[in-house]
C-alpha cells in the first residue's frame, strides 16, 4: 500500500455512482447537523422550506438555499465576532483563522475544532501524496504563518505524511532562498507570485536553483495560468503542482496529480463541487465556465453548504486524466474570479489572460495593470512592466507585448509602459496587480 499513487485508494477510485451515493450520505448528515446546531441554518432552511429529509436523490441538492460571503459577513457583523453560522461554542474550537483581506473587505473569521483542524491536514495530504511527495522528502513552506490560513494545513499535512518540514515563516526573501538551498529542500510551497520572486532573488544572490534538489513546487493562493507555471518551472528546474483552497473550508479542494493532465482533481469524497451559471444559478455542463459552489463535509464548527465562492472554473470529467482517480477536474485550476472581469471600451479583460501573455516574456520582473479615465473621459488600460537593470531590448519587447495584448483582446489598444526598477509592489500572499482608477459617472 505504501507504493500506492493514491492517498486514499478506496474512495479516490470509487465508481462515480458510488461516489455520488457517499456524497449524499454525508450531505444528509451535514444538513441535519446544521439544522440541529446553527441558528443561521435553522432560519435559512425554514425560509426556503427545506428540510434534510427532502434529500432523497442527487438532484435534491438544489433544494438547499445558496450561501454567499455577504451572508456570512452580515451574520458576523450582526453578531460579532463569529456570527450565527457556527455550530459550536467558541470554547470548543482550537483554531481561529481569517481571510487575507486582499479583496479590501473585512476579513472573515473561521473556527476549527480539533477534528476540523486534523481534517484540513488530511485534505492537503491528498495533494501531497498525489503529486508524489513521500517520507524522506524535505519541504520548505515559504509563507508568513500568521492568522491568514495560507499553507497552515499543508504544514500539518507534510508532518502527517512523514516529510521533514521546514517552516519558512518570519524570514526575508533572501533568507528563504538561502535556506531552501542550504536545507536541501526537495519540495517548496508558495504562491505563484512568490515562487517567481524567490527565483529572482536566488538569481540575484548567485544561487543555482535549477541545480538544487528542489523537484516539486506546490502553488496555491492565486490563479496560475499555464504560462506562469512554465515560467516557474524554468526558473526552478522543478515541476509545478497547482492547488487551491479557501479559508471558508479551512483547506484545499483540488490538487494536481503526478500525471498533470492540465487540470486539478477535486477531493469529492470530502466535498461537493458544483459549477453554476453566476447569473441564473443553473448548473452548467462540463467544459463551460461557471461559478464554483462548494459544500464541505469536514468542518463541524462552521457548516458550509452550497457556498458561492465567486471562483470562476470549468469542470472536466474524471476520464480526462489517466491516473485512475474517478474525481472530476477543474480545467486549468481556478481560472479567475467571477467578479474580476473588467470592461474596457466594450472589451472584456481578465487579469489572468493578461498574466498569461506577460509571463510569456521571461525578462519581465514584475508588472501592473492600471485602468484610468483620460482627459477625454475615455477608458484606458496601461500595462506597466519592470525589467532587469540594464536591459536593452525594451523597444522590441514593448512592440511585441503590445501586439500580443491586442491580439488577445479583440484589438484593444494597451498602453505599454516601462516602470522604474523596484517601483512596482511585490507580493508574498495574494497578488493585486490590477488597479482600477477609472472615474464612475
Amino acid at each position, binding site marked *: 500500500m505504501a507504493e500506492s499513487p493514491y492517498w486514499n485508494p478506496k474512495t479516490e477510485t470509487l465508481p462515480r455512482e458510488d461516489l455520488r451515493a457517499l456524497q449524499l450520505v454525508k450531505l444528509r448528515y451535514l444538513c441535519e447537523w446544521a439544522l440541529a446546531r446553527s441558528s443561521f441554518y435553522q432560519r435559512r432552511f425554514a425560509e426556503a422550506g427545506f428540510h434534510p429529509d427532502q434529500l432523497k436523490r442527487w438532484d435534491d441538492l438544489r433544494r438547499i438555499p445558496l450561501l454567499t460571503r455577504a451572508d456570512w459577513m452580515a451574520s458576523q457583523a450582526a453578531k460579532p465576532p463569529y456570527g450565527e453560522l457556527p455550530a459550536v461554542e467558541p470554547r470548543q474550537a482550537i483554531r481561529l483563522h481569517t481571510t487575507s483581506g486582499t479583496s479590501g473587505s473585512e476579513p472573515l473569521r473561521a473556527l476549527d475544532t480539533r477534528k476540523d483542524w486534523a481534517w484540513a491536514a488530511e485534505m492537503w495530504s491528498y495533494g501531497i501524496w498525489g503529486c508524489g511527495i513521500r517520507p524522506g522528502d524535505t519541504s520548505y513552506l515559504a509563507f508568513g504563518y500568521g492568522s491568514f490560513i495560507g499553507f497552515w494545513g499543508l504544514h500539518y499535512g507534510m508532518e502527517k505524511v512523514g516529510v521533514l518540514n521546514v517552516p519558512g515563516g518570519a524570514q526575508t526573501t533572501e533568507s528563504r532562498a538561502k535556506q531552501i538551498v542550504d536545507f536541501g529542500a526537495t519540495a517548496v510551497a508558495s504562491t505563484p507570485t512568490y515562487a517567481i520572486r524567490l527565483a529572482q532573488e536566488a538569481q540575484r544572490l548567485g544561487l543555482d536553483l535549477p541545480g538544487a534538489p528542489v523537484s516539486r513546487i506546490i502553488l496555491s493562493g492565486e490563479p496560475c495560468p499555464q504560462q506562469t507555471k512554465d515560467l516557474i518551472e524554468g526558473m526552478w528546474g522543478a515541476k509545478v503542482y497547482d492547488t487551491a483552497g479557501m479559508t471558508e473550508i479551512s483547506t484545499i479542494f483540488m490538487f494536481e496529480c503526478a500525471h498533470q493532465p492540465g487540470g486539478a482533481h477535486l477531493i469529492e469524497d470530502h466535498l461537493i463541487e458544483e459549477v453554476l451559471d453566476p447569473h441564473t444559478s443553473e448548473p452548467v455542463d462540463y467544459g463551460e465556465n461557471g461559478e464554483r459552489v462548494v459544500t464541505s463535509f469536514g468542518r*463541524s464548527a462552521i457548516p458550509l453548504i452550497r457556498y458561492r465562492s465567486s471562483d470562476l472554473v470549468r469542470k472536466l470529467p474524471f476520464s480526462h486524466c489517466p491516473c485512475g482517480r474517478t474525481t472530476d477536474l477543474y480545467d486549468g485550476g481556478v481560472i479567475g474570479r467571477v467578479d474580476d472581469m473588467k470592461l474596457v471600451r466594450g472589451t472584456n479583460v481578465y487579469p489572468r489572460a493578461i498574466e498569461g501573455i506577460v509571463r510569456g516574456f521571461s525578462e519581465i520582473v514584475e508588472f501592473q495593470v492600471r485602468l484610468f479615465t483620460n482627459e477625454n473621459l475615455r477608458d484606458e488600460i496601461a500595462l506597466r512592466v519592470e525589467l532587469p537593470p540594464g536591459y536593452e531590448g525594451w523597444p522590441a519587447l514593448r512592440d511585441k507585448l503590445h501586439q500580443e495584448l491586442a491580439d488577445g483582446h479583440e484589438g484593444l489598444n494597451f498602453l505599454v509602459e516601462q516602470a522604474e526598477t523596484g517601483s512596482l509592489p511585490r507580493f508574498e500572499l495574494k497578488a493585486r496587480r490590477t488597479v482600477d482608477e477609472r472615474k464612475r459617472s
Partner: protein
Amino acid sequence: MATDLLGNALTPQEQRLLDLYTGLKELAADDLPPTAAANVRHALAQLAQAVNSLALVHEHLTDLDV
C-alpha cells in the same frame, strides 16, 4: 455484519480501525487526567480522519470536545 457507508462489508483491517475509534470515543467520554484526556482527544481527531476518509463513519465529535 458491520458495513461501511456504502453498505460494503468491512475488511478485517477496517474493523480493527473502527474498534480502535470506538474505544477512543469511549475513553474521551471518561473523566481522565489532563495528559490522557488531551492526548486521547488528539488521537481521536486523527483516527477520525482515517475512518471518515475510508467511508467507515462520518460524524462530528464536538460533544466530546474533538
